[in-house]
């Protein structure tokens, strides 16, 4: 049974900056409160403060946190240590980074019980296995003997939940526990989490940026922005009648509206034509096949001005497809026709003009921009390289590009480190546009962005497509995103193309079963969706 949590006037600051500003809320025993907001809104900082912890450089400057009848913030360091992992447990976003790779899972799962001496190791093991069963893990009796790399990401996330629950905490904090998972895995993990939280009647705080996920898990939602509470209400109320404008914009971004289709040219000749493409990694054998074949038999036609979405789970080969087209990974078999001409397999064999026509935008804007070049340098290079621009025309073009992606001219002199994630992704896009490409390969461009920021980037891309008549190959794991911007969807699994669905047929079935599974697995923005899914599966089985 969970304890009540009362937070009053919580203030957290980093130097002169206020991260969380006078936040007050309470959670009744056994209830789940969701903290929702974009990155930098202070949701994780708040969640950590519930354990009396502030990250390096931050400090809790005021307020009180009561869990049950203890005041967490006035405790000594030793008392707080006794509290953490015992009374309050924390489940982090990346389970892979939270497990020690050189120790077995069971050792780590029972560690909280051992540290806080709540029970003997043998008892703890029995309890852990019981928890594995509750969390619907395969082989609950033996899975603990494995090492972290021997289980999947979704399983590891559930194992971390077992670690958190082993001491029967009064309060469980879940910090974006499913954000890093594929949709089909996410649904299983959500199911498991909800079951244990409900059965144990634990008080829980669920931190997330995904409203649709939160709608399945939480009783109440607290919307945070820049460390300030925008709104706190029951989940139903927030979803149906949001009071603050910010909540409305979050809701709007979470329900992606289909963007207008671009005008696809009537050319009979496709811009990009892939024929029986195969590619892979590792040394090649006598027949030229690589040791690890990733892509097999991919056929695809992309017309000028068209946007095709490529969707699949991680490991389906969708990024490899983009790398093969770009020439980063020479295909072992098949041909790539671009504008009717055959492209050479490797990057080094293609000429400058061919390279200019295909540009790529990467998922993680942080690593796609050189941290020691200014934005102006980054945008200037393709212009100098492909077109030999210099002096005043170069400056004009840089400013025009910044206008195009809706960034102020003042960012030109800044380094990427001083830009937000959304701004960086815009610079990334501007650099691709600087080359005047015909085709832009977009590899998960919005995955690392907040919903609202991601939606703005999608809008921008749709607009650019209309204005500049570029084509996109849009790679994503998020079906909603792909449906919103693409004219056609290609579904990939295990390196093969399973199906291709045109925009007109999105809502008309029946589709390939795997496409339908993906479609079903995307959480919907309403309460009770997960329950319906549960019923559907029980009926089916």
């Amino acid at each position, binding site marked *: 049974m969970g304890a009540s949590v009362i937070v009053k006037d919580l203030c957290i600051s980093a130097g002169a900056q206020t991260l969380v500003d006078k936040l007050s809320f309470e959670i009744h025993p056994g209830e789940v409160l969701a903290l929702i907001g974009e990155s930098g809104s202070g949701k994780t900082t708040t969640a950590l403060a519930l354990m009396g912890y502030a990250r390096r450089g931050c400090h809790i400057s005021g307020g009180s946190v009561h869990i049950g009848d203890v005041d967490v913030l006035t405790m000594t360091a030793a008392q707080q240590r006794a509290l953490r992992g015992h009374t309050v447990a924390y489940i982090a976003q990346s389970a892979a980074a939270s497990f020690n790779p050189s120790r077995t899972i069971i050792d780590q799962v029972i560690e909280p019980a051992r540290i806080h001496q709540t029970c003997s190791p043998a008892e703890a093991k029995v309890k852990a296995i019981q928890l594995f069963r509750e969390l619907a893990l395969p082989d609950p009796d033996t899975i603990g003997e494995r090492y972290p790399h021997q289980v999947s990401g979704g399983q590891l996330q559930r194992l971390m939940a077992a670690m958190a629950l082993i001491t029967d905490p009064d309060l469980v904090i879940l910090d974006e526990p499913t954000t890093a998972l594929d949709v089909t895995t996410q649904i299983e993990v959500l199911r498991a989490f909800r079951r244990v939280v409900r059965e144990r009647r634990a008080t829980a705080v669920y931190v997330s940026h995904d409203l649709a996920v939160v709608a399945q898990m939480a009783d109440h939602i607290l919307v945070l922005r820049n460390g300030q509470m925008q709104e706190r209400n029951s989940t139903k109320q927030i979803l149906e009648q949001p009071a603050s404008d910010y909540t409305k914009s979050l809701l709007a971004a979470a329900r992606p509206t289909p963007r207008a289709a671009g005008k696809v040219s009537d050319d009979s000749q496709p811009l990009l034509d892939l024929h029986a493409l195969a590619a892979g990694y590792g040394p090649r054998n006598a027949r030229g096949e690589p040791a690890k074949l990733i892509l097999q038999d991919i056929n695809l036609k992309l017309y000028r001005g068209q946007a095709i979405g490529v969707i699949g789970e991680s490991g389906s080969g969708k990024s490899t497809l983009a790398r093969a087209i770009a020439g980063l990974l020479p295909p072992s078999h098949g041909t790539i026709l671009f504008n009717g001409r055959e492209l050479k397999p490797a990057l080094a064999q293609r000429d400058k003009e061919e390279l200019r026509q295909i540009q*790529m935008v990467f998922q993680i804007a942080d690593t796609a921009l050189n941290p020691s070049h200014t934005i102006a340098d980054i945008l200037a290079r393709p212009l100098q390289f492909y077109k030999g621009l210099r002096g005043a025309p170069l400056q004009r073009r840089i400013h025009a590009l910044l206008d195009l992606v809706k960034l102020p001219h003042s960012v030109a002199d800044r380094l990427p480190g001083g830009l937000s994630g959304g701004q960086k992704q815009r610079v990334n896009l501007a650099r691709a546009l600087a080359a005047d490409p015909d085709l832009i390969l977009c590899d998960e461009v919005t995955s690392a962005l907040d919903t609202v920021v991601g939606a703005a980037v999608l809008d921008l891309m749709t607009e650019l497509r209309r204005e500049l008549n570029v084509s996109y190959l849009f790679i994503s794991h998020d079906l909603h995103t792909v449906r919103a911007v693409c004219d056609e969807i290609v579904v990939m699994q295990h390196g093969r193309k399973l199906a291709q669905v045109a925009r007109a047929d999105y809502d008309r079935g029946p589709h390939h079963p795997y496409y339908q599974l993906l479609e079903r697995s995307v959480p919907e923005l309403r309460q009770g969706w997960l329950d319906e899914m549960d019923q559907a599966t029980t009926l089916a089985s």
Partner: protein
Amino acid sequence: MKTHVSITPPLAAAKPVSPGYLARCRSSISWFGGFGWSGLIGLAILLFWIGAALFGSALLARLPALNSSVQIFGPISSAHWLGTDYLGRDMFIRVIDGASYTVGVAFIATLLASGIGTLLALFAAASGHWIDATLSRALDTVTSIPSKMFALIMVAGFGSSVSMLIATAAIIYIPGAYRIARSMAININALDYVTVARMRGEGTFYIMRREILPNIVGPMLADLGLRFVYIVLLLAGLSFLGLGVQPPAADWGSLVRENIGSLAGASAAVIAPALAIASLTIAVNLVIDNLPGRSLRKRGVK
């Protein structure tokens, strides 16, 4: 009062001329301010030793009376600021004279070792498989030769001269610099922005210079400081064995060796050059650790 009031307008009028100059002053002041206190102390010591290396001997030549004394291993006195050495020569002059060898030789050798090492590492990382493997194995071979032994062979083969010492020290420390620079360059080479540059069709040299180098230069400078210390110690060690700078010229290592006999007497003659070595190496590291710009970059301004 009245005169004061009447003076101010011309001053105010003169002001619009100066902002550019003022701004320049302010920016150079803030550049030094970026060093922080420990960095400034290091910089002061380093500048002192560089000054001593460049001009010390010329300046001291004008003070004849200092040059000799009848007393060997003399104590610190007003006549001999750091006492006298085993032949009764003034230790202060010996240390200042030695600075030009130690600072000069070690500095040039360090720059050569780090520079060549970094260059080869960038080349290896940016051009990939075969060149990388060949270079790495070749430099591993150099690493496998014990450094003192290698220096001994070089001295035996080519005699002991300043340029030979520089070459020896540089060759010995190239593989270390290469290893460190390569490990960083390989990581950066795998990042998306280098992939973007490759996709653009950029050549190897551009990728080395513009994409990778700016991002490893900070750690490589820190490594340069460390390598400088090693080289000073190597040269001191060689001189101590009598293989380094030949008498009557002496670097700080030879000064320690020459005067080792006074160790039991706690004479300044052996402590002074040792302290000089310590102060130089610490100063170099203080300066490099506090180089301004690194913390600025994180805040996103140039």
